């Protein structure tokens, strides 16, 4: 963790990427948001872990753990692309399948959770509905906010023709 925190302090991220808390992983900081985890896992951890765990002189188990983690990183990166093709969906499925399979082999005591199962089916969702940002919760919340800011005179759900027929 010391090495990760040290690298994090030096990393310059574009302004559109929210910074993760510098003391993440401590009891003082507590829980992190989903976006914090995404930045930590896709940016900060690869920078440090590949350097520390990727060497030829390290035990195979450590390298297998790195490989397993990087499969997850690549799957998350592909799943969050702003535009997506069938080839990229196949790339997602390849990495997420490898991640879940090696996760079971590497961490015998860890339980396979529903989120792992759901992640295996996410390729079908990408195939059916397109990139993640077009059907994520944030997408719909943004539209709800947009609709709420329209003035409807407390007649929500009525069309103009309904209103005018009531007048005649």
């Amino acid at each position, binding site marked *: 963790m010391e090495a990760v925190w040290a*690298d994090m302090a*030096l*990393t*310059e*991220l*574009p*302004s*559109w*990427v929210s910074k993760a808390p510098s003391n993440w992983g401590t009891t003082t900081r507590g829980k992190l948001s989903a976006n914090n985890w995404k930045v930590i896992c*896709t*940016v900060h951890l*690869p*920078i440090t872990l*590949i*350097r520390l765990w*990727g*060497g*030829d002189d390290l035990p195979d188990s450590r390298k297998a753990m790195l490989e397993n983690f*990087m499969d997850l*990183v*690549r799957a998350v*990166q*592909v799943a*969050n*692309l*702003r*535009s*997506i*093709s069938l080839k*990229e969906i196949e*790339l997602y499925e390849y990495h997420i399948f490898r991640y879940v399979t090696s996760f079971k082999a590497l961490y015998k005591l860890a339980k396979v959770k529903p989120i792992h199962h759901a992640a295996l089916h996410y390729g079908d969702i990408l195939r059916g509905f397109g990139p993640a940002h077009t059907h994520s919760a944030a997408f719909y919340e*943004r*539209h709800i*906010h*947009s609709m*709420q*800011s*329209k*003035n*409807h005179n407390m007649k929500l759900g009525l069309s103009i023709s309904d209103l005018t027929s009531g007048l005649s």
Partner: protein
Amino acid sequence: MRSSTREANLKALLEDDSEARSRVGDLVETYRDILAEDVRGTRLAHMIDAVHLTQQAADIVYDRNSLRESSLPGAILAAFKQFLRCKHPGLRDEETTENSSDIMVSPKAKVLDKFSLRGVQYSTASRRTRDSHVFFRSAKPEMGKAPPSPQPGQITHIFIHPNVLHYPVSSSQHNRPSVYVCVQPYAPLQPSSGPKLRNIDQMYRRFGFAGGFLCRNEFASPIIIEPSSVISHVAVTPLKIGADNVFHVLPMDRVTILIRLLELEDS
């Protein structure tokens, strides 16, 4: 919910009451800009506000009011001449002296600190370092040839040269002055770099778009590119590996282009 209702009422008031609208004057324009930030880019926004359907958004956006006159340093002017020679091999007339192939370009230019390309903001290193690290292509791909490899660098200057070139944006818009970006590329690792450094670089490169790569902690000569050559931002981390100071560069492209590019290079 309460603030949304107030917002809805205010919008209706501004639309329907011309007297109220005239009293608040310039505030209306700013208020509309702020509202547009909330919904920009959504299909629903286009459906609700039909005015967006008739507006064509430009790829490059910058604040014309922030343009200021400046003299380009010698190194950048030389790079700019080189850029013009490559882009317009037959450049003549007032830009070229009669008996020389050297292009005469005035050092006077209008400089900018930042611009927005397809909704992403890029800045010069002096303005906002975080937004100045980019991944870019130094030249456009030629027909039938493999595209040149993208490389990382830092934006040092953004400028408009008023006397050189203008390009048509579209038939419906007036010609706009071209924006030029001066980038200092990060120097790649040399073949003579130590085996430890090369091993670690290979370890990063093995993971492709998710792992990034290493560069030397120094800059190559500045080059000029067009904004459309910028691919994405990069995250830069200075690292000390053994006795070597290097930069780790992680491309931050989230629009697939980079993954396709890296695949092309691997194949």
